[in-house]
């Protein structure tokens, strides 16, 4: 302990949820036209028919369905952080369709989930995760986990 848990990017998800199940991706919603944005837009609404500048933080739906998925069998280049001394462990990427927002959001799957565990249309939920750790910080992120999979 002692290393600060730090979001890899500020304001994109609940930083310190009281309970893990309160964890959410955070977007913004235009006060004028209700358009929802993730990643968040804080200055200008991107609806071309709207000149809104009041954008309010809004949690995204915690669950969605797999739109597609893949994995990374080779080490990605920087700024992705990985230990070059260790053998590369593929990670899984999931694109998830959220019903209420009618949008697709990308994320890594929780560690241990492989492409063999996934199918298009499967229900998944967002959970807090760790992207990488260094001497000073534990960099936190969001992960997608199939509903019903063991934590």
């Amino acid at each position, binding site marked *: 302990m002692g290393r600060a848990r730090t979001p890899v990017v500020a304001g994109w998800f609940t930083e310190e949820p009281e309970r893990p199940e309160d964890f959410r991706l955070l977007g913004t919603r235009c006060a004028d036209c209700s358009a929802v944005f993730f990643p968040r837009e804080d200055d200008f609404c991107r609806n071309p028919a709207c000149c809104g500048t009041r954008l309010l933080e809004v949690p995204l739906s915690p669950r969605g369905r797999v739109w597609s998925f*893949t*994995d990374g069998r080779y080490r990605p280049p920087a700024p992705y952080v990985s230990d070059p001394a260790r053998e590369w462990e593929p990670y899984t990427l999931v*694109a998830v369709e959220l019903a209420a927002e009618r949008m697709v959001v990308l994320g890594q799957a929780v560690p241990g989930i492989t492409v063999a565990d996934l199918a298009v249309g499967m229900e998944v939920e967002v959970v807090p995760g760790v992207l990488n750790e260094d001497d000073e910080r534990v960099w936190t992120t969001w992960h997608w986990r199939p509903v019903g999979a063991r934590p």
Partner: protein
Amino acid sequence: MDHLALASGGSAAVTGDVAVLGAGMHPWGKWGRGFTEYGVAAAREALADAGLDWTRVTLVCGAQTVRGGYPGHVAGAAFARALGWQGARVSSSYAACASGAQAVNTARAHILAGMADVALVVGADAAPKGFFAPAGGERADDPDWLRFRILGATNPAYFALYARRRMAVHGDTAEDFALVKVKNAAAGAANPCARYRRAVTADEVAASPVVADPLRLLDICATSDGAAALVLSSMEFARRHTAHPVWITAVSTVTPRFPQTVLELPDFATDSAAGTDPAAGTGKDGAGTVRTGAVQAGRDHAGTVHAGTEPDRAGFRASIAAAAYEEAGAGPEDLDLAEVYDLSTALELQWYEDIGLCPPGDAARLLREGATGLGGRIPVNPSGGLASFGEAVPAQAIAQVCEAVRQLRGQAGDRQIEGARVALTANQGLFGHGSSVVVVR
């Protein structure tokens, strides 16, 4: 074609054609030289092909590389200087994979405006090996930097998401994808400018390592050095200069429409379609009418999933081609060949549908029938495509036009499509860029 209407706001009415007087390329490969040298070689070949002296050029349009430090040494100026400063106007365009077509379009606009009569368009790159990666530094406001930092999502990862989606929605198979490679490798073997010039078998594709499931190494295009150049002119100049010019009748440079409902590089998410009615096209009714249509996902007996609230296809890629067709006054039925951006084998199939060669979901069938191979009804990527070239980003969209020019002139050697008269090129890049060019004779 109902998607034509999608593009009407962003494209103009038919305003005139420009002539292609010359085309030139530096062969693709890994040569270890600077991009300027490749570009000058291609430019000199294009000028020789046009029978015009460099000093006759009044506008140089460069397509920029993102490499090489100070933005690609500012491509247009780098080529103009290397060819010899002679006072011509200059411009440099950047639009990711569409950069080359944007340079063509800038030249076209100058010519049609009467601001230049002979324009030289050049794109060249000296690409690094391996995954494209963002420049160094910490840039939390740069989506391209963030997707690597947070997701490790390389370009092939996005291509793989599209491929898996096609497999789920349309029933495409890994064998279909491999067949694209087999087809393009066969064509590339007949192209002296291609980097890879040998036949590839489906077994070789299947034996190559998975890069991003379901895509294997031979499903994904490499990164290459290379250059391509065109000499363009006004109709008046061309008619005085040559008996049989080839014409560019359309260059589409449209952007997406909000909400952009297909996940694009380098984004983390699509736009939300809630609150707007995609059917209205422009989102003008977006005043608070949040729609909460439930996602419906079902799996049929073949394992094909019918999922999602949005049709996958009424998207940006289709609108790129639609704008080109509209501007050219032509349609898919008029094409004799197409050059499309096969960043992956699966993406080539997507393009068949997006440029209207077949209805959504039918691309693999078209491929299996042999319609898109050399000798087929509508050959796609007769150059060999990115599969045979590898990506040299700012050169690639220009190289597509070079292939069209050579085919329409009957100069394509063993890959010649007999009697070709109409060609379409198409590509898509990061950050909402794409382009499509129509070339006719």
